[in-house]
């Protein structure tokens, strides 16, 4: 069987997948990526390189992905619709594919008002669902968005997307995922899960509709490093749902790091038992070196 990428191989062979996120630096120092990658080598099946996340200018996700490729690590190239129109997006997809990047993940993107260049003009020519459909048509039909033929090799992309089960209107969230699936998404990484109860309600509906058979779902995990970070995520990041019990545990703990670590282990344990979940996606913001330990204790190492 032909697998487009290692991540696709792991998922299609029914292994519980692990992806991890590497945020590029605010600067051109490649070692900021390669050092993190060195720590995470062997810990995940593929590594997301974010695309100017939260609208803050950073080293490009394309360059970051190539740095990983050169270390024989598999990147998941993130591409957002905020900064490029359909011409640039399709061009970057061809370019990335020519450089051997197999996994790409498409998002609409955080609004520029959140970032460090709020005076920028957002592009938003197309949204994530439209982009996913464009990439699927490029890959499977060999056509561009305008209907013209691709002349020299279709991009062979394992198509990723995101889902936020905690945003509103909650009752529409599974509809939106279903739409992404019909657009052509192969795998989904979710917003960080802290509220397992709400996550299970979302998963119930996904099982009711049989959607877990049509897309691979990787649940987001973010180890909380400090009470400051917990408060920022709980009160200031839209769409993140940190329930009060987790917040209070972090607040009342003498050792925040160790409490955050335990919470992450417990969350992974609960998520692994949910029927229809195919893996986890770990985002350890400025705490990448904790990932190997978390995965070891969760019995997710070595990787298949």
């Amino acid at each position, binding site marked *: 069987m032909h697998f487009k990428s290692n991540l696709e191989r792991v998922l299609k062979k029914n292994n519980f997948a692990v992806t991890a996120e590497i945020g590029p630096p605010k600067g051109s120092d490649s070692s900021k990526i390669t050092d993190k990658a060195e720590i995470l080598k062997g810990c995940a099946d593929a590594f997301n390189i974010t695309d100017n996340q939260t609208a803050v200018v950073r080293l490009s996700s394309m360059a970051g992905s190539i740095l990983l490729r050169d270390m024989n690590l598999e990147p998941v190239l993130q591409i957002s*619709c905020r900064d490029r129109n359909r011409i640039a997006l399709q061009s970057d997809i061809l370019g990335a594919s020519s450089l051997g990047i197999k996994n790409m993940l498409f998002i609409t993107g955080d609004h520029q008002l959140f970032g460090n260049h709020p005076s920028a003009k957002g592009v938003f020519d197309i949204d994530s669902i439209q982009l996913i459909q464009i990439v699927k048509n490029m890959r499977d039909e060999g056509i561009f968005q305008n209907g013209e033929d691709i002349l020299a090799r279709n991009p062979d992309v394992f198509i990723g997307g995101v889902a936020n089960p905690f*945003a*509103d*209107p909650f009752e529409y969230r599974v*509809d939106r995922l279903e*739409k992404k699936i019909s657009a052509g998404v192969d795998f989904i990484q979710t917003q960080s899960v802290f509220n397992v109860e709400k996550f299970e309600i979302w998963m119930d509906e996904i099982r009711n509709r049989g959607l877990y058979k049509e897309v691979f779902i990787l649940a987001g995990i973010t180890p909380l490093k400090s009470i400051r970070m917990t408060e920022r995520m709980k009160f200031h990041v*839209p769409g993140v749902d940190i329930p009060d019990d987790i917040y209070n545990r972090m607040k009342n703990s003498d050792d925040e790091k160790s409490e955050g670590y335990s919470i992450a282990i417990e969350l992974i344990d609960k998520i692994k038992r949910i029927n229809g979940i195919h893996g986890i996606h770990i985002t350890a913001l400025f705490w990448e070196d904790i990932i190997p330990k978390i995965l070891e204790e969760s019995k997710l190492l070595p990787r298949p």
Partner: protein
Amino acid sequence: MFLFDHMIISKQKDFNILLKKVGKGPVFIIGCSECATICGSGGEKEVLEMKEDFKKNNVLVTGWVVLDPACHLNNDKRLLKMHHKELEKSKKIIVLACGNGVQTVAEIINDKEIIPGTDSLFLGEIKRLTEFERRCEMCGECIQDSFDCVCPVTRCPKSMLNGPCGGSVDGMCEVDPDLECIWDVIIKKLSDKGQLDKLKKIMEPKDWSKSLVTKRSIK
């Protein structure tokens, strides 16, 4: 007479497109006394012409009204009330006003299919008044009937056409906690009507070549 800063330049959609959307009707036609009258896309003259055109195509027109102007919520409520019997008999309503006028009408009439009959093109200068809400950016290709006549091209900061992003919380937009998430509004409206299925279709990327950014005048 209503004094205002700008005039919305619009042109009527191709009649055959409207005929297809109207189907068997019956239809009620709404015009606008201000901008659409001045640019000849939806004044009394155009409303009556359209009425004749529907007649020729065997589509029943239950009535018509020229709102004064269509973007004036209270005036619309009053004028539409006077036509409520004719409205009652119709299944579809064509609005020959700018993209904002269409949304004002849709705010009042909730139980009929509303069809924008014009494409809003650009803003032309006139003068003055106080409070306004931006509802139409005159993209040149009106598609708001796909969203129950609430326009996400203009009213979603990311112009998302296929549902809300992950930052919609308690009905508010992630960009500004005082701004309602317009997708929340669209979903509630359609959900109340039992028409959420309308959103299942993937909306294709918008055709921005229809916008008039590369032109300065139309004849």
